[in-house]
């Protein structure tokens, strides 16, 4: 077997050194009735060529985004990833290292995390960021739990513009915490009255920016209203690329910013792994979940980096830790950081502008076909209404049969809201060509019966 170096002679010699006659003797603590001295009745191992052939056949049964006009977003976005990102990720010293517990042999990972934390803080307009969570949805749940700790309150309000997965994960995570979750109804038009829900026992309001249906709103009045009642404003980001074009949540008064970092450097990969972003104010740093890389000096006085403030974490605090998270998304943080280093601030701004321009161009084509756009404002994603009685899910299935991956029907997330059955969420990015947009607008108008 190609991953196992021992020869039979090695094994015999080593068993001899251990002082046993047979490998089974080393498993003698296993109850005999539960021990398989021979391989289980499952398929045997195979060579690279055979495994690769099978997996290529399996992969070929899906339609890759790159082979179709593609307008799906709703929390994960298809952006161009520079070739250098993946090449650098494959450096074995990054790929095959563990969490950097031994700082002297982990300065590469630690400096990278320090740079990543800085990049996240800069684009979100926050003071401090951690070294990553699993994904945007779990980061959102951690933010709700942290807001409850910081405010010592137990009411969490979820905007109807928050990604439904973020809302569901937050509800599940806080189920046994004693907190009360108030989830507002889906809000494609951006007209909900979240402020009316704020009360003296509110721990936080969680809004998404831009919203799940694409809409943008000034966060400052929300932040002011939250702070007036002693609550925190948590802002969730689905696509950090947009921050090249819109005000960062930190500049508008957000207390915690969480998000999904997949847009930068990390492909779609059927939805995982992603990259949970988590940023906040300095004054809350000791209530943060997750790893933090910090700067220090070595015994020779040279600048270096370590994991720090670990008294918040499970390996020290056990049941009193701020979170149970251990393994996080280190390699995804590296991908994000490399992509952002290649873009820089100017590149991020230009990329965001290209995304917005693509969405404007798509909107113009859809309007020309008589399709109603619901979102009054957006960066690169908006909702459309395909007409009373239309079933967006069925239309999307028909588009898929024509080789077009044309957006996400709102009913996939909200099966209990019949009024959302005709609503479709469409995202445009720099990867979409004019031909893709023409194909989508034409096919959508035909299938929607226009």
């Amino acid at each position, binding site marked *: *077997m190609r*991953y196992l*170096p*021992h020869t039979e002679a090695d094994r015999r010699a080593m068993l001899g050194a251990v002082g046993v006659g047979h*490998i089974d003797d080393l498993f003698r603590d296993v109850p005999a*009735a*539960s021990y398989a001295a021979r*391989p*289980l009745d499952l*398929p*045997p191992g195979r060579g690279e060529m055979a*495994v*690769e052939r*099978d997996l*290529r056949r399996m992969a070929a049964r*899906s339609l*890759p985004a790159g082979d179709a006009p593609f307008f799906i977003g709703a929390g994960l976005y*298809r952006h161009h990833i520079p070739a*250098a990102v993946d090449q*650098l990720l494959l450096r074995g010293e990054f*790929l095959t290292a563990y969490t950097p517990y031994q*700082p002297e*042999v982990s*300065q*590469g990972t630690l400096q*990278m995390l320090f740079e990543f934390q*800085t990049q996240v803080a*800069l684009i979100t307009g926050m003071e*401090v*960021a951690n070294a*990553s969570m699993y994904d945007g*949805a779990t980061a959102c749940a951690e933010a709700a739990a942290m807001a409850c700790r910081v405010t010592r309150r137990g009411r969490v309000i979820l905007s109807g513009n928050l990604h439904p*997965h973020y809302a569901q994960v937050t509800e*599940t995570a806080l*189920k046994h915490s004693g907190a009360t979750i108030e989830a507002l109804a889906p809000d494609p038009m951006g007209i909900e009255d979240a402020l009316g829900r704020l009360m003296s026992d509110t721990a936080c309001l969680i809004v998404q920016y831009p919203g799940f249906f694409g809409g943008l709103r*000034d966060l400052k009045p929300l932040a002011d209203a939250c702070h007036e009642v002693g609550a925190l404003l948590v802002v969730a980001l689905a696509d950090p690329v947009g921050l090249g074009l819109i005000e960062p949540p930190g500049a508008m008064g957000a207390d915690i910013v969480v998000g999904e970092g997949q847009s930068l450097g990390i492909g779609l990969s*059927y939805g*995982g*792994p992603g990259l949970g972003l988590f940023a906040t104010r300095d004054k809350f740093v000791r209530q943060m979940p997750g790893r933090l890389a910090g700067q220090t*000096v070595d015994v020779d006085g040279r600048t*270096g980096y370590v994991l*720090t403030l670990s008294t918040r974490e499970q*390996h020290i605090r056990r*049941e009193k*830790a701020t979170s149970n998270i*251990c*393994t*996080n998304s*280190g390699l*995804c943080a590296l991908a994000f950081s490399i992509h952002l280093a*290649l*873009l*820089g*601030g*100017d590149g991020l701004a230009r*990329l965001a502008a290209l995304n917005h321009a693509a969405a*404007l161009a798509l909107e113009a084509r859809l309007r020309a076909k008589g399709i109603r756009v619901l979102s009054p*404002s957006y960066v690169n994603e908006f909702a459309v209404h395909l007409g009373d009685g239309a079933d967006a899910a069925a239309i999307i299935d028909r588009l898929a049969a024509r080789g077009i*991956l044309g957006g996400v029907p709102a009913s996939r997330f909200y*099966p209990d809201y019949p009024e959302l059955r005709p609503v479709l969420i469409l995202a445009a990015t720099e990867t979409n060509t004019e031909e893709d947009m023409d194909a989508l607008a034409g096919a959508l108008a035909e299938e929607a019966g226009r």
Partner: protein
Amino acid sequence: MSEIVTLSGHRGLALEEPLLFEVGEPGRTGVDLPEPPPFDRDRLGGCARRAPVGLPCLSEPQAVRHYTRLSQKNYGIDSGFYPLGSCTMKHNPRLSEKMARLPGFADIHPLQPPQTAQGALAAIEALADWLKGLTGMPAVAMSPAAGAHGEWCGLMAIRACLEDRGQARRRVLVPDSAHGTNPASAAMCGYGVESIPANADGRVDLDRLKAALGSDVACLMLTNPNTCGLFERDIVEIARLVHEAGAFFYCDGANFNAIVGRVRIADLGIDAMHINLHKTFSTPHGGGGPGAGPTVLSAELAPYAPLPFVVRDETGLRLVEHAAEAARLGAKPFGRIKGFHGQFGVFVRALAYIMSMGSDGLHQASADAVLNANYLLARLSADLSASFPGPCMHECLFDDRFLKDTGVTTLDFAKALIDEGFHPMTMYFPLVVHGALLMEPTETESRETLDQFIAVIQGLAAKARAGQAEDFRQAPRFTPRRRLDETLAARNPVLRWR
């Protein structure tokens, strides 16, 4: 060594690298993007950015060099022997990386209509079938993102099941050798945690367990093999006692690699266990993730598995994403624990590994992992102080008695290993012995590597006995940075560049 100074600050191949923020310049780019067409900002809802982002930028050659130099300050499995106990640092097959990058896996969106994602759903199903086959368990929740997330998932299923029975059990029993995530996950589930001490054998003290069990115990969380590297030989009796008390038996599967292909955990009476794909099934640790922690469940717990899950019907494979639809299928999911459908990219890597190994290869892998650990234990027992007699499973535990009166600590000893070109073992964990040194060699290390490591350990132990403590205190000397001031880092946190 540190007194040798060069003009540049570099030392041959040991290259210094400044922060990104000190090398980047505005006006440079690493990505050539077209000029955006002109547009009004009136569709930005009054949220147009007022100030520039203020991020540095590197050209592609600078970026490649920056990250290459950073990588050279890291030690990975590719660099050398990495016997970090309980972390399973074994070789990461390159085929797995190649397969995860196939467009039909890497470039598909989780919200594509299922008929355009049949290959991805088939990969999830294939991996789930393997995990069920290897554990003998009837169901598996695929969405947990890591081990700790899987623990929490299992406990949430247990709590949902108990609530369904109308039982408000409030305590979770956790042996004191457990990983810190166990009590942290129990607390996140709203449970009180009670610690169960180990006996002189390094295993669960049955009498203390019996005394702690009662009608308010929801479950026992037990790592098996445990963090001392020992198989809990009373496990069947433990399962019986736990079930007799009406509680569930959760197994932390972090060490499943020791028994994979040889022991089906269903046969031990376990009700739920997460599997760290990044350990047992060789997906890369990536400097701290991503991992994946699918959680196998008994028939009784299976209906409570979280959303989403894959089902097969006449149209092919599809996802069940909502509680109402799950209810029509007889399931009662406790909720959703992650965005989308799980760590799919990690699944593909694990699947490629499992298909490569097969039942025979996995059976051999657990044998070699256990053989290697016992080889270290046998060859090092005269020089170090083994905490428990063998045989051990996939890792062997020593404590610091062999360093008594030498002035050398476990930390010093580990740092000296770094100068010798090895990654240190896990230090000071588990907490049940003093100054723990926990070594996990894994099955992908050759006998030659182990012999080199053994010779170095023996030499270092002799050096410690010979009174050369100061040498140890100075270690490491040949690394990009020497010992770092962690107290300063915590007292005066500098967590970003300004």
